[in-house]
């Protein structure tokens, strides 16, 4: 740790993809926050937004749409790519972040805050919960993908 450059490198690396401890994750780089009362908030991770680059458009699911886990439910588009977002849990869309329509960059700037995408009302969490990753498992996944 004597080498200041290495220190900066480590600092940079750990900050490159923030993985908050209070969230759950998927292997497809979505995060899930339990808002209570069966409502879960969903977005894409810091790592995912960094991989995609500057987002120019977000196609969000309509409220009241019902998704099975693993179904395509949204699209995030950057200048040169478009990626599907897969629904991490089965449930009904009860809210979507309409601010992203005019400000897709919120996902780049604040993926876990202002960049949230939609909220699901989940009836049977037990069915899908086992598929979700905890922060450590997700960090390991990112570490392997990043290399």
């Amino acid at each position: 740790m004597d080498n200041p450059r290495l220190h900066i490198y480590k600092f940079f690396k750990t900050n490159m993809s923030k993985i908050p401890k209070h969230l759950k994750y998927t292997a497809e780089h979505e995060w899930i926050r339990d808002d209570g009362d069966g409502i879960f908030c969903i977005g894409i991770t810091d790592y995912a937004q960094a991989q995609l680059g500057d987002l120019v458009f977000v196609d969000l699911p309509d409220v009241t749409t019902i998704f099975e886990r693993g179904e395509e439910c949204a699209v995030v588009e950057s200048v040169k790519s478009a990626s599907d977002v897969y629904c991490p849990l089965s449930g009904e869309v009860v809210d979507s972040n309409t601010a992203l329509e005019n400000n897709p960059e919120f996902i780049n700037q604040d993926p876990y805050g202002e960049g949230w995408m939609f909220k699901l009302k989940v009836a049977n969490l037990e069915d899908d919960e086992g598929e979700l990753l905890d922060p450590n498992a997700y960090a390991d996944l990112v570490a392997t993908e990043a290399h």
Partner: protein
Amino acid sequence: MPFIPHNDIARNAMLEAIGSADIENLFQEIPASLRCGELTKIPPGMTEFEITRLMHKKARTDGQSLCFIGAGAYEHHIPAAVWQLATRGEFYSAYTPYQAEASQGTLQLLYEYQSMITALTGMDVSNASLYDGASALAEALLMAVRANHRSKSRRILIPRSLHPAYRKVAHTITRNQGLDLVEIPFDISGGHTQLESLAAYAGQDITALVIPQPNFFGVLEDVNELTNWANANKALTIAVVNPLALSLLQPPGTWGQTGVDICCGDGQPLGIPMSFGGPYFGFLCARQNLVRQMPGRIVGATCDREGKIGYTLTLQAREQHIRRSKATSNICTNQGLMVTAATIFMATLGNEGLMRMAAACHANTNNLTKRLCSIPGITRVFNRPVFHEQVLRLPLATKPCLKSLAGHGILGGYALEQDYPELENALLVCATELRTEEDLDLYYETLHRIITAQGSATCYQPNF
């Protein structure tokens, strides 16, 4: 000399390397029943000189018929400048260039084209064109299914008054996509689509409603009512229009209370010769909020790092080379050359020229209708206003009548019976701005003679 780089030495070396005795061997796995064998019906090659003479000879037998057929392709005046400029080396390509941004001139032209088409249609955005009007409609149907999230039925209402070839192409292209295309009958006295015939679908899950203007019969539809009906029933609206007619008619972007969602059609009337059916080009426009569901290429204006205006292919994340199997369409090119001609055509005529051309077509068709309807036995089939086509009922079968007219150098119109058995002896006629008073007179006189001759033959009662 054939332009093939391989000689026998190279071919033999390759065959030896793969261990095959001859080339025929490589095709053994194709069953004999599927192979064409000797092409006995293909004549031996001819020299350029011989082929030129042959073609001139054949062209002479075509004659110079007077054309009164419309039915989707229209003979219009094309200023000489249009194709003189379009065939310049800088433009003379059928495609958007591969390194698009290196060809700023081509992109600027496409951008101007898009701007002109959106001005004509009153829509927010246009793509850089599609193959033709019929395939543009098929793309519009698929686009509507993608865009209408509220609808799960994939059911689209298509008036029977829409061009029969468009309906067939739409069926062919969308056949394996699970669309439910429902035909809506037309009113037998007006030739248009009545709200009453849609009533059975009110309140149901309808993905989209197609609205032709003018329709295949030349008849003007109640586009405002139809658009409002679709809105009230949460269906998207797809206008299929003649772009020339739009210089006189209400643009689809303003139909009803909201305007339509998608607008498409064939661009042939804008400077493209009839050419035995093609190539033509299709146009497709949409509301801004549907732009990401549009098929085809879109050119955008931007500025370079010095702040100068530049043009670029934009919103490419919809397209095949990026979205792969989830692309909005497998169309990844446009009808570049046809669009070049159309853009020069529109620029040459301008607003006023287009309006005058459309008005002259309308007036000529009305004159023709008046003249032909003065022949005993000929009547208008539909009582609604038309743009530049009219359906007439003849007192005799249309097919032999058209044959007689052709014998006099007149292409008399389109026999509707082949597509609409219910329209017996009905002829669809069109007189564009190219038809003179003398042309109309000649058609009138010739048809009058034919009908009189036929009439006396059928009225003849042998006296026993």
